[in-house]
């Protein structure tokens, strides 16, 4: 009914213009062409993939002889925008990029590591929240998996922005990948700004000490930095949700370290695993362990007030208690786990 009601005035308006300007058929035609062009360019905007195919086809059909700088630039452009959107948010998150890489990480999540997420109801459905996780696994897969767990299993399907270690944010390829999938660099300014905006953040207070643990130290939480995450939570009143990730320690078991190899490339450590670097790029394939991600009950810190952030003893105490809670959650899960591969 309402659809019909809408159509009538438009038709009548068009009829009126026609009646007013009988000889302007040419102009109308031109306007129609403009409209169609607009539609076409909108379509192009939404269907970048097609334009990539077109660009590739054009490149192939013209052959190497027909390759000019301009066509090369067009091809590169089509390739880039096939998996990047032209706009990002303030922090560099790119929706199209996230969409593009999601199938791969979904595969890791559902098939490769068969992630089992429990307790997602403890993650706040709205407003700020600080998910505190244990770090492991050499490469920041664990952060992405926590992000996916909250995206897939939490009813509000929230984006959990991970605070990435500086070292990951410095490495080529990995740095833009992390920032485009919604991560930001781990520093108090970023954390406070995002929490004040009411966003959900994931942090790894262990930092580099956690992610590069040797195999015999697995599932023993390292020191929790200097309690920066507690200070941010106190200042913003965000609840702390402990999150125990089990299974990620075994994907790249670090049996030794050769830090002197990585130093010239700006790496803080250089892990030696049973497969890396001996098998070359194959050594980068993570082992298919069975993962579990458990979210614990939120720890409220609002009773201390923002001024608590200035009290280092209080900050230390809270950090320590979060660490203990997390260690207990990990130990509990480990005690229940029968196999590294099947859970």
């Amino acid at each position, binding site marked *: 009914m309402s659809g019909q009601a809408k159509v009538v005035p438009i038709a009548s308006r068009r009829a009126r213009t026609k009646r007013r*300007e009988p000889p*302007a058929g*040419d*102009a*109308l035609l*031109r*306007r129609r062409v*403009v409209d169609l*062009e*607009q539609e076409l*360019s909108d379509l192009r905007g939404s269907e970048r993939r097609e334009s990539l195919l077109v660009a590739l086809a054009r490149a192939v059909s013209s052959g190497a002889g027909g390759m000019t*700088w*301009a066509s*090369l*630039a*067009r091809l*590169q*452009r089509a390739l*880039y*925008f096939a998996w*990047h959107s*032209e*706009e*990002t948010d*303030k*922090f*560099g998150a*790119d929706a199209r990029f996230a969409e593009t890489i999601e199938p791969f990480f979904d595969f890791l999540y559902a098939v490769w590591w068969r992630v089992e997420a429990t307790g997602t109801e403890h993650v706040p459905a709205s407003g700020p929240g600080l998910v505190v996780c244990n770090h492991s696994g050499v490469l920041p897969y664990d952060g992405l998996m926590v992000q996916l767990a909250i995206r897939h299993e939490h009813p509000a399907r929230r984006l959990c922005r991970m605070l990435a270690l*500086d070292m990951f*944010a*410095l*490495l*080529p*390829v*990995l*740095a*833009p990948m992390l*920032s*485009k999938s919604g991560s*930001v*660099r781990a*520093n108090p*300014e*970023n954390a406070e*700004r995002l929490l004040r905006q009411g966003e959900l953040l994931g942090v790894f207070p262990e930092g580099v000490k956690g992610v590069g643990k040797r195999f015999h130290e697995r599932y023993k939480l390292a020191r929790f930095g200097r309690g920066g995450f507690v200070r941010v939570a106190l200042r913003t009143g965000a609840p702390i949700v402990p999150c125990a990730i089990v299974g990620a320690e075994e994907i790249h078991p670090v049996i030794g370290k050769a830090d002197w190899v990585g130093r*010239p*490339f700006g790496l803080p450590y250089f892990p030696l695993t049973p497969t890396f670097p001996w098998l070359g790029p194959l050594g980068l394939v993570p082992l298919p362990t069975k993962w579990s991600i458990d979210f614990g009950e939120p720890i409220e810190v609002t009773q201390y007030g923002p001024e608590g952030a200035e009290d280092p003893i209080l900050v230390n105490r809270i950090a320590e208690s979060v660490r203990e809670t997390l260690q207990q959650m990990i130990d509990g899960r480990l005690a229940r786990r029968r196999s590294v591969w099947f859970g």
Partner: protein
Amino acid sequence: MARIAITGTASFLGGRLLRRLVAARGADGVLAVDITPPPTTLHGVRHRMVDLTLPGADRRLLEVFREEEVDTVVHAAFFTTPRRDAAYAHELESIGTLHLAAGAAAAGVRHLLLRSFTGVYGARGQNPSLLTEESKPEADSGLSWVRDKVEAEAHAFSFSRRYPGLGVTVLRFATLLGPGVHTFYTRLLSKRVVPVPLGYDPLVQLLHPDDALEAAALALEKGPSGVVNVVPRASITLLTALHLSDKVIVPVPHPVAYPLAELWWGSGVGEAPSGFIDYARFPCVADGEKASVKLGFRARHSSRDALEAYLAYRFPEAAHRAPEARRASESEAHEVGA
């Protein structure tokens, strides 16, 4: 009537600001201080020649400011493009500002507005996603281009502390890009092939000159307000910007890129020293919150607008700019229809 003195009127932003102030206050309300006279199209603008790099420039400035009854000084004599003779750049930017601040303080100038760049924060891996004015500028940067600006800001503030009558505003502008802008960034954008560090795609901020002028005018209205970032509405990633301008991109691994760029720069061919590669690897994105609170400034253009405005200006013949073409054909259709 108290006058506004502008230094660096031969520079792009200084010249544009001079025109704007002449339009707003009349030719008698402004004074151009530069080693080259302002364009002859600006009738009746008073001009005093002062070389900021000469010893004794502060005394000369004191005389000029006293004689011309200057109460506000806009200091825009800065290089937007890195120079090979770093010694001269240092004399002009750092020491020149020292002279200017000394002269202004002695002459009882009320407000000194300094033009600076968000680049002074330095592109570091540890930067927060949005740098506020509280973030420390990178005083030990490897780039003399950055160090000189940081020093200039410090000189201005140290004089303001000792002579409380002298209020200071430092406007840290994001990278200027738009019609009429000629910097080493625009020279890079004029090339067919642009080398970029492999595997990095940081956000960059491109500021439309109209927004920069608007912010400067507002700052002059509002009076001294300390350090203020002037940034565009939205950022853009470096590769998006380069692809939108239809460049062929050659990724170079960064361990190789630095020595190559240094060699290229040292041999007199390159556009910028290797330190600028940092700005293509790590974000240096400033927050514009303080400008909107303190100055009431909200940028009208986004980085993308600035880029498109520049491309339309630089390559008017290029047909790939769909939005402009569409707008043109639309207006044509309207003309015909009406």
